[in-house]
């Protein structure tokens, strides 16, 4: 009897213990501040939170994109900074001899793929949205952002590993042997994502929230993709549609594009906001002159994306009003009142300058695609399809807004193309378009070889405290097509034996 009682007691005790174990584990496993990932998305509101997160993810790659685009072009160059070590890697990019361990390449690659993974995760869960129209709009937004990322990557790196679904532990083995898909395959994905987005996105941004994409943004980006692929007929279709029906228009004043919130000219842009915790723009401080203390921007500048003499003179020669004091400044007054000019490190890009209260926390948005680009792309398409006479009015529309004389000397297609490339340089300086434009126009090797050649007597690439840039650059002159692509980050190569490298001859 007693034995039985003891047995019951022990069993009861064990049961209590076990249940208390489970409740303890339960309590420890779900801290309120962490939201478990994939299982989180249950409804449209939660999907929307995820989408906002993907927009936030546009910022990280953009913060290094100018190193890979503007700095490598003839618009901007690496500039000395106190921490020489970091500048060294910018110099390598500037001079077309990056190493595969280059921090900026690696950051851009990993930040972009991180956001692709975020996007894929939300797309994977999109079916929890019950309203079909909203679901298609949401999916359109996500696919547009994914296409934007792959489009940037494929133009910078060539063939790519493609991820269309979220990263899963169960598929780990495949990731370690994944191969690069061809450029054509990447474009198939970009096109299909953008077509879906163009067809399914609404014409208004979700909730009228600034920065969120619309069908017009998708169509304009698709136009840019087709243009890059030299599919002019398709490009014209989408670009004309945006041009005539989108309701977007040029700002009356060029400089307003960079100061107005929600400018009508912007089709797709990346939002930054000050004083909100980690979503401010770093560019005010990045681009202000190095060691200008508080003379240009509160909290000093880093001197990145430094305007080349060539860019400054290009504007000066043409007396183009979009240059000095609009797109950039050629000097500044330091705290003791001395003027530091562009030859001594005093020039800086002006497009993203506002006074931040905290360092790297400014307000200015970054344009990805604006209406002026739609018009100039249309000029490019018309020139290819119908010739310069049909194209010139578009070019002149942009020139008129800028307050410069119209281009009337219409001769050949190729002459017009050169004019157009120059116009794009004047219109879009420091907007990360120059590099891709030079490639699309087939002029990158020629322009860059000439640029370095001209700089032989220029102090630009010769500062002895910088890396011995000049001697290096000359080794690669004339610049070969092999060096137009960036190297795949070494970490990617080392983690996957099937990942091939772009080879510099």
């Amino acid at each position, binding site marked *: 009897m007693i034995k039985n009682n003891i047995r019951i007691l022990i069993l009861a005790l064990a049961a209590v213990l076990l249940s208390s174990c489970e409740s303890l584990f339960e309590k420890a496993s779900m801290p309120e501040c962490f939201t478990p990932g994939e299982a*989180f998305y249950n409804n449209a509101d939660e999907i929307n939170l995820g989408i906002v997160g993907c927009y936030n*993810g546009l910022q990280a790659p953009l913060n290094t994109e100018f190193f890979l685009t503007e700095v490598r072009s003839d618009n901007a160059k690496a500039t000395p900074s106190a921490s020489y*070590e970091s500048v060294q890697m910018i110099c390598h990019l500037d001079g077309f001899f990056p*190493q595969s361990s280059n921090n900026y390449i690696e950051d851009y690659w990993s930040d972009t*793929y*991180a956001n692709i993974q975020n996007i894929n995760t939300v797309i994977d869960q999109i079916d929890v949205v019950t309203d079909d129209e909203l679901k298609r709009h949401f999916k359109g937004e996500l696919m547009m952002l994914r296409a934007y990322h792959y489009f940037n990557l494929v133009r910078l790196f060539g063939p790519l590993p493609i991820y269309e679904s979220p990263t899963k532990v169960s598929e780990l083995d495949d990731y370690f042997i994944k191969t690069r898909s061809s450029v054509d395959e990447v474009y198939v994905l970009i096109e299909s994502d953008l077509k879906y987005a163009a067809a399914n996105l609404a014409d208004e941004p979700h909730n009228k*929230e600034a920065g969120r994409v619309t069908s017009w943004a998708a169509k304009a980006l698709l136009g840019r993709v087709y243009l890059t692929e030299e599919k002019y007929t398709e490009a014209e279709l989408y670009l004309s549609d945006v041009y005539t029906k989108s309701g977007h228009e040029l700002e009356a004043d060029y400089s307003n594009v960079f100061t107005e919130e929600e400018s009508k000219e912007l089709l797709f842009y990346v939002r930054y906001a000050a004083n*909100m915790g980690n979503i401010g723009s770093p560019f005010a401080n990045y681009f202000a002159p190095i060691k200008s203390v508080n003379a240009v921007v509160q909290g000093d500048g880093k001197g990145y994306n430094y305007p080349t003499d060539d860019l400054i003179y290009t504007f000066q020669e043409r007396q183009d009003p979009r240059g000095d004091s609009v797109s950039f400044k050629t000097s500044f007054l*330091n705290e003791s009142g001395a003027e530091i000019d562009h030859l001594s490190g005093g020039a800086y890009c002006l497009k993203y300058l506002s006074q931040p209260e905290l360092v790297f926390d400014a307000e200015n948005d970054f344009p990805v695609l604006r209406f002026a680009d739609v018009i100039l792309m249309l000029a490019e398409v018309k020139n290819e399809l119908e010739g310069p006479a049909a194209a010139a009015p578009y070019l002149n529309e942009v020139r008129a807004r800028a307050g410069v004389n119209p281009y009337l000397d219409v001769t050949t297609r190729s002459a017009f193309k050169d004019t157009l490339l120059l116009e794009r340089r004047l219109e879009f300086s420091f907007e990360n378009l120059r590099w891709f434009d030079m490639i699309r126009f087939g002029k990158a090797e020629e322009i860059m070889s000439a640029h370095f050649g001209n700089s032989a007597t220029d102090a630009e690439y010769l500062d002895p405290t910088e890396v011995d840039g000049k001697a290096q650059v000359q080794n690669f002159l004339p610049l070969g097509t092999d060096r137009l692509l960036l190297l795949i980050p070494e970490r990617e190569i080392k983690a996957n034996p099937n990942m091939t490298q772009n080879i510099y001859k």
Partner: protein
Amino acid sequence: MAWETPFLELGITPGSHFDADGKPLPNPDGVLYPTMDSYLLGNATERTKTMVAMESGTHNWLDDMARDNPHFRQYSLTAQGGSKRVGFYISGNYQNNEGVMKDNSYERLYLRAKLNAKLSENVELGINVTPQYITQEKSTANFQLGLPYDNFMPIYHNEFTRFLTRSTYNIGDYTRSLHFDTGTPTLTWEQYEAWKEGKLDAIPDGNPTARLSNSSSTNPISKQQERSNTYDEFRISAFMSLKWDITKKLYFNTTANSYYKTVENNITETEYYNRYENRKASNYIRSISLFTNENTLNFKDKIGDHGITALAGFTEEITNYNYHRIVGSNIPKGMPLTLNNATLISQDGDETFAYPEMEVLLSALFRVMYDYKGRYLFSGSVRADGSSIFAEGKRWGYFPSLSAGWRLSEEPLMDDVEWLSNLKLRTSYGLSGNNSIAKYSYLDRLVARNYSDAEGQVIAGLGSQNLSKSNPDITWEKTNQVNAGLDIGILKNRVTLNLDCYYTLTDDLLLQQTMPVSTGFQSVWQNVGRIKNQGVEMLVNIVNIDKKDLYWGMNFNFSQNQNKVIDFGGQYQMFSYGKRANEYLMQVGLPVSNIYGWKTDGIFNSLEELNNSPHSDDDIVGSLRRVDLDGDGKITEADKTIIGNPVPKLNWGFGHEFKYKGFDVSLLFEGLHDFDIYNLDYYNAAMRDNIGELYKDAYVDEFHGSKPTAWGGVKWEYTDHILYDGSYIALRNLSLGYTLNKKTLDRLPFTRVRVYFSAANLYHYIYGDYCGINPEFKDAYHNSVLKGGEQSYTLPLERTFTFGLDLKF
């Protein structure tokens, strides 16, 4: 004390290297520009720097920042006593340490009370309470910060620097590197003399400007003085135990311990702290509460020659963590530096946050031990551990172990062997578990990723944290260990030897496997692979002399370990990355941790040499020349190889103890052998300052300088250039003491009086090629098996002298 580092500034005497026009003079050998310093003195930049140094008086940032002889004080008082039923113990301990840096201090008050009471014949109660208070100020300006900072600059602006910087700064303002950056005027010696005589009021027009300094660091003294970083820490542990003797052979024991610790960290910065001129305050509170409960039922019996003990138990351990941090800035000038005066509270989730964490560990244990005549010993145990670190279904691990021992010296046969006092053979097998990874690693986590609308409102968003991919399948890492040991005692245990050999196989290694970053993650938590460890540990104690007034004892210990990767989940190798993206290689068939990089062979002395040697695009003249291992005529990633191993191959200790009458002396030597150190501090210093002693012979041109320039070419941390053998032998401890004899004590109110002196780290014999300040530093990866050996911002090794007095009433 003067810090004897290899980094000290050159003592430059103007006039000896150049003429009045600032042109360099030939040195006694008649060679122009023989060294870096005289070469540099020839130019306006170095000339002006020298003038600043002459006007400001030479000083050394390290000396300015560090205390000459920091003092440590420690007092303790202990009392114990009691009656037959109740016993008590009380102790108090007070410690007050000055730190190595001037803004560094540590103060601790630690009390402990213990009480044991027999409540009845068979119930015993124990109580143990330890309150503790620690207040400390941690250094803001790291020791190594002084190294890369230009020594020509004074701490504060003086008349000359005000003149030189065109009256931009006031006398007494902190100097900053950027005050002497690009655009600083230079002077000729005549102009300098004229200024001294009061004949020069302003910098003459047309004087060339130069860049005297290019450091990105902040004036270390302004950092020390204008930023305060205090920690207040309260801890209390309350422990209770209850032992109930149910029968003579069976007792039940239960213990409970509550531990609470809270650390409040306050940081304030004045507008003078750095060049951003922002007044800031932050408050960070971390608290940990831990509750442990342990219940065991114990059985012990002896039936004839058979001894048996058994134990069954259950324990639980619940830990709660709380982290709260608020960072405020833009405090108006004149207002006290407190958070409520901040006009801007940071909304950055990395700065301002509050979050809880919780961890639970539950265990059940069963153990049986059996012996026959004390000669043959066996034991077996099994434990089950459940950890909240893992997901449901993966939480429990079961760990059995078995052991056997044979005390040969107890065998009747051995009774005749007088000299042998103890001989024991033992062997064991056991399985043990490891769950020491970050909490919630099995869980996908979303973090705030916001955006904003046009009205300036935050739009809430969420996204993955993209560093490490979670893995719901991770579980306990398991280690199988086989051990064989031998204990010998001879001559009444005057000589004892303990020898242990072990062999372990670790399976399902818990590690962050590097992922291709295109997956969106840097790494993933995995149970993968198998590692083998084998080693020997030995301990010898010898009493050489043991007489009434004279005693001499010595001990020697030695251990050696080797590990090897047996399998890595079907893969062949994995690279992981250190602080500076330097690489570590893990490869099947090799030791676990290998430093990976390029071998170097001198520098490129000329463009011709560079062009005619295998090189890479980023190489420049004066930079390190790497070895073309694959012989393809180019330097590529394929030329990298294993260049070092951070794990010591051997370590040992050797101690002596002498006593003669009231005097006692003890000595302890220790040695660590054959391991590599990545000296990133050397690199930092050389990076910033081309004229340090260490950098004296840096490349200038074809004819001058043989050391690599830090200003281009391959980064040193990817090569063996800053890799050193850190092997050393240390005189770890030396102590001398004197104890008063009984005769003298009788006249004093004490039962024991001892005075002593001891010195720690008195001498290090570094026989490897290491040349930094501390071969014993702990690096950021001391918990990782994959990485290690990176020395960065290391504090110097402390040599401590202690004078002490022990009194017993």
